[in-house]
């Protein structure tokens, strides 16, 4: 977790206020109508995705209770997060990215954060790798200052370009009067200059050089409708696949003397068609979400 006291927002804003400067103030409105919803409740799941479906086992007369539906909804959200590579709920993440001299000198220090739809940059720094470790059950470096490695240099957030955060990419754009190859305002390189300068001059790569803390996902309590739709669809598929096998009979008949009655139905295939429809809908939704909020195809140069 983080306290957000130091932060820089995505200048393009986040869904649904994309392509607008995202104001920090809450009293400034963005888009024109609602595209976000609260978290799905069991009642909404029943009304909007499972309308008319009896959540009762005909075999045991057990009812699928609301607590179970809550768990199924939560699992469906986890599935959406992993399959679509997005964070449904806001998450603070940390990434340690390598020093790459080519990227710094020719690509404005482009760093890929690993997750798209990044909302806020909280820290870009250079930290040592001596983060907290344990010797004979005795924690070493176990304090707030050094738990994640000691800060050698805090990059001013003014220099961080956030215009590609939606794609999970940041750049360093110091816009100084000097060429960008004078990296990030480090002291001018001399024979006696500090290790950071030596690294920037002589090392081509160095693992875990940058330490970046950022927030990704959507606003708290504001889940885009289309993502809720996919969560509800996955939850409905799960519920129907639980209920389907409880439909025992394909056909039943009873005869008494000359009178008889026969009833036939789909049996345990009762919800198969609905599940098939929902799976097709889920594929379509996933495709739209991936193309809108993340990437469907990722292509990289080395």
């Amino acid at each position, binding site marked *: 977790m*983080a306290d957000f006291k130091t932060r820089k927002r995505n200048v393009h804003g986040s869904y649904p206020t994309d392509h607008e400067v995202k104001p920090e103030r809450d009293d400034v409105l963005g888009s024109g109508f609602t595209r*976000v919803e609260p978290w799905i409740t069991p009642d909404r799941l029943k009304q909007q995705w499972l309308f008319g479906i009896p959540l009762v086992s005909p075999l045991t007369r057990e009812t699928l209770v609301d607590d179970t539906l809550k768990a199924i909804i939560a699992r469906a959200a986890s599935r959406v997060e992993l399959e679509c590579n997005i964070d449904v*709920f806001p998450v603070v993440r940390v990434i340690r990215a390598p020093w790459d001299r080519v990227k710094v000198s020719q690509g404005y220090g482009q760093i890929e954060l690993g997750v798209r739809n990044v909302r806020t940059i909280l820290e870009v720094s250079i930290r040592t790798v001596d983060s907290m470790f344990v010797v004979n059950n005795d924690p070493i470096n176990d304090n707030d200052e050094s738990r994640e490695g000691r800060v050698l240099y805090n990059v001013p957030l003014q220099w961080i370009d956030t215009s590609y955060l939606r794609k999970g990419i940041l750049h360093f754009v110091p816009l100084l009067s000097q060429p960008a190859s004078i990296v990030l305002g480090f002291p001018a390189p001399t024979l006696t200059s500090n290790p950071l300068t030596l690294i920037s001059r002589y090392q081509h790569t160095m693992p875990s050089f940058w330490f970046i803390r950022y*927030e990704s*996902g959507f*606003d708290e309590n504001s889940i885009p409708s289309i993502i809720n739709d996919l969560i509800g669809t996955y939850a409905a598929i799960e519920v129907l696949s639980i209920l389907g096998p409880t439909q025992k009979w394909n056909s039943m008949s009873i005869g008494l003397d000359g009178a008889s009655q026969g009833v036939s139905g789909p049996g345990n295939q009762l919800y198969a068609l609905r599940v098939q429809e929902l799976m097709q809908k889920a594929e379509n939704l996933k495709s739209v979400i991936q193309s809108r909020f993340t990437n469907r195809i990722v292509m990289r140069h080395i």
Partner: protein
Amino acid sequence: MRLDIKMLDPTSTLNDIEYINELEVYPGETTTVMFQIVNKSNGIRYIPDSGAIVTVKLYSVNDVNNITKTATNPFVDDRSIWSFNLNAVETQKMAGVNMELTITEGTQIKKIWAQSVIIVYPRTPYKA
């Protein structure tokens, strides 16, 4: 024994309690959160010791917006029922969904993770 909670409609009275799945909160309003502590295995109410302290935590991704409340018994005759108030500032900043409860009965400490019990609506319907 594992404990759980059942959410109650905050307008419930001692002899007319109404169970709800989750409390829905609009940001900026004042509200009361009321719940009953129950034994998870049989669903029967659990009455903590007299003098027990129940604290509730609501977490946000932003540490500044975490909320910690101490619950009280709204009905002296039923110590299984607890409640706390949220003011307008708290409902504006809260993240909702889950609650962490700590029940301290003397030296005994019991924990409850209540999932999807507070649903908070988007801060304004016009932006996110």
